[in-house]
């Protein structure tokens, strides 16, 4: 009985969504996609297929790594701003202001061309074990993206830490929890729940800034599409496919975060 009702409900919702003008719009969109498939050149696809997959994999890997590291930095930065004394909160605030006040492209180039040009001048760096890494481009890209994510997310975490009701922390202290335990069991989880919707947006923004690393010669999916464009002299096809790939990743990210958000208890505070 119940399942029948849900089926009817679903049918009703679908028919509400599929109004006549929407069907026409979908047909138009399908026509555009089909004309793109048939009238544009896609014969380069098999040749660059593996390279593209590698590029997507690298983009995702950079995204995951920088988000995780950036969040780890953002927690102390946010905590310092929300509850720290002047000597902790002032540097954290300056860090956030600088990161958020300058373009990411400039930060990236500053690290890669600026710092990267300094290192070879010192022989002891050239001889150390770090040199094989410092010679490559990706550590600079990861560092710049991590710092940028930490700067933006630190500001979000500041608000989230400050937003946890005072009574919760007082109750935890009354239970005799140690300070570390309060932070681990009460403060951080509640702040995290509060920051989660913003975290989705920040992650999508981070995904959209990963193609910048292509400008310092890291081969991600964006760099692959640039290479295709240079090799085949095609302007639109690689870019359109690239836009489609990014939209798909964004969709998956938003969907996943939505699932996570639905799992957390929504009666907080």
């Amino acid at each position, binding site marked *: 009985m119940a399942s029948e009702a849900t089926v009817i409900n679903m049918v009703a919702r679908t028919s509400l969504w599929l109004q006549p003008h929407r069907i026409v719009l979908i047909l138009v969109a399908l026509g555009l996609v089909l004309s793109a498939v048939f009238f544009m050149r896609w014969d380069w696809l098999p040749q660059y297929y593996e390279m593209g997959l590698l590029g997507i994999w690298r983009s995702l890997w950079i995204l995951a790594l920088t988000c995780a590291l950036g969040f780890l930095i953002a927690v102390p930065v946010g905590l310092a701003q929300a509850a720290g004394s002047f000597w902790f909160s002032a540097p954290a605030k300056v860090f956030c202001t600088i990161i958020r006040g*300058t*373009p990411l*492209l*400039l930060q990236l180039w500053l690290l890669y*061309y600026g710092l990267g040009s300094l290192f070879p001048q010192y022989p002891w760096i050239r001889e150390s074990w770090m040199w094989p890494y410092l010679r490559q481009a990706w550590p600079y890209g990861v560092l710049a993206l991590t710092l940028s994510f930490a700067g933006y997310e630190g500001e979000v975490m500041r608000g989230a830490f400050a937003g946890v009701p005072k009574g919760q922390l007082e109750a935890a202290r009354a239970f005799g929890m140690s300070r570390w335990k309060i932070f681990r069991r009460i403060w951080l989880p509640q702040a995290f729940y509060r920051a989660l919707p913003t975290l989705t947006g920040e992650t*999508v923004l981070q*995904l959209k800034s990963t193609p910048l690393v292509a400008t310092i010669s890291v081969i991600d999916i964006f760099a692959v599409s640039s290479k295709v464009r240079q090799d085949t002299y095609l302007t639109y096809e690689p870019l359109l496919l690239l*836009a489609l790939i990014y939209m798909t990743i964004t*969709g998956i990210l938003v969907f996943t975060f939505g699932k996570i958000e639905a799992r957390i208890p929504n009666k907080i505070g």
Partner: protein
Amino acid sequence: MLGLLHSLEIAVGATCVGLLIGICGAYGKLYGGPVVRDLLAVYTTIVRAVPELVLILLLYYAGTDLINQVLTAMGYQRIDISGLVAGIAVLGFVQGAYSTEVMRGAILAIPQGQIEAARAYGMSPGLLLRRITLPAMLPFAIPGLANLWLIATKDTALLAVVGFFELTLATRQAAGVTKAYLIFYLAAGVLYLAVSLFSNLMLGRLEAWSRRGMPSVKDAR
């Protein structure tokens, strides 16, 4: 310095174009017919899901190419579209999607009675927009729009990738010539930061001005 000027020119132009698109888009989303509403939903979703860099490349090349093809098809000569106009148009198109959403939220935050009262007075839609909707939504829209302006100033750096001469590209060239990479990049960073901080100050004042006469939230507690 010429680079900074170019950056600011583009940022201001793009924000103006974006605001215009935003107002039209928000009106279309709220009051438009079903087709307009769906098309706008597609526009804002796609623009906000694709990286700005990809959009800039796509629109920069596709836009100039399209205009030239239309012109040749109509029998005119090909024209060279300057980087400035193309940059403003492209960034404005991107900003428009974001400001559409900001404005839509701001218009929805206006108490419904104000708009109904204006309609009851027999105001024409244009007058209603100018006298009631725009001023009343301003305090709700300014925080979001301030964010957009700051994003616009930083997005101009992306135009360096398509070879437009603005602050970041100027810095890169100067640094490449003099080999003093660190100094030039730090200087450019300070310039961007100064622009951001200065606009923060001004926007704070603007918000205080647009909120004039509204009761402060602090007193309510």
